[in-house]
């Protein structure tokens, strides 16, 4: 019973992680790739950490809690750092229908 539950949770995590990597491969733009990698990546690793709690050992559970806390705190900071660095470098918003509202004219001209 517990094995089936673990399988289900890991399958969900794999699906979300596949969405994250697929978005990072196929999206046309650094900014949109950042969306896929940070948001879907963090959502996708949560099921893996959750599934590992089914072993029932307190050492493993404590470490999982620590990893979850660390990832929750550091994923937005890292994503923000990359986005800020991209803006300061003037990375362009390629891809059809891009609109840049910052006034720096980063979207492609159509």
């Amino acid at each position, binding site marked *: 019973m517990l*094995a089936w539950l*673990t*399988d289900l949770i*890991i*399958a969900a*995590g*794999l699906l979300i*992680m*596949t969405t*994250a*990597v697929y978005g*990072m*491969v196929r999206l046309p733009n*650094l900014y949109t*790739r*950042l969306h896929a*990698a940070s948001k879907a*990546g*963090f959502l*996708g*690793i949560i099921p*893996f*950490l959750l*599934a*590992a709690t*089914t*072993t029932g*050992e307190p*050492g*493993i559970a404590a*470490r*999982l809690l*620590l*990893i979850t806390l*660390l*990832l929750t705190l*550091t994923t937005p*900071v*890292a994503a923000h*750092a*990359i986005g*800020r*660095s*991209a803006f*300061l*470098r003037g*990375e362009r918003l390629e891809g059809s229908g891009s609109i840049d509202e910052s006034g720096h004219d980063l979207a492609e001209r159509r």
Partner: protein
Amino acid sequence: MHPAMFYLAVVWLVALIGASALVVIAARGPLVRILALDTLTLLLIALLTLFAQATSAAHYLDAALAFALLSFIGTLAAARYASEGSLFS
């Protein structure tokens, strides 16, 4: 966890890691590479957590914790270097 699911998940995660590594190699500009490396370490953390669950061993999670910390610091340092030109302003 059933062994079949464990093997499937390992193979699938290795395929995702390969796809992410392809983005690192074939990207234009440093920032996409930094992002792809961050995603790569996240996938490696997932793989290590899978092993920790399968073998009920806690030391894999120590490695996963170290990975998370190092990738965070490395992403911040590389992004700052890519935009400012130096780490300390």
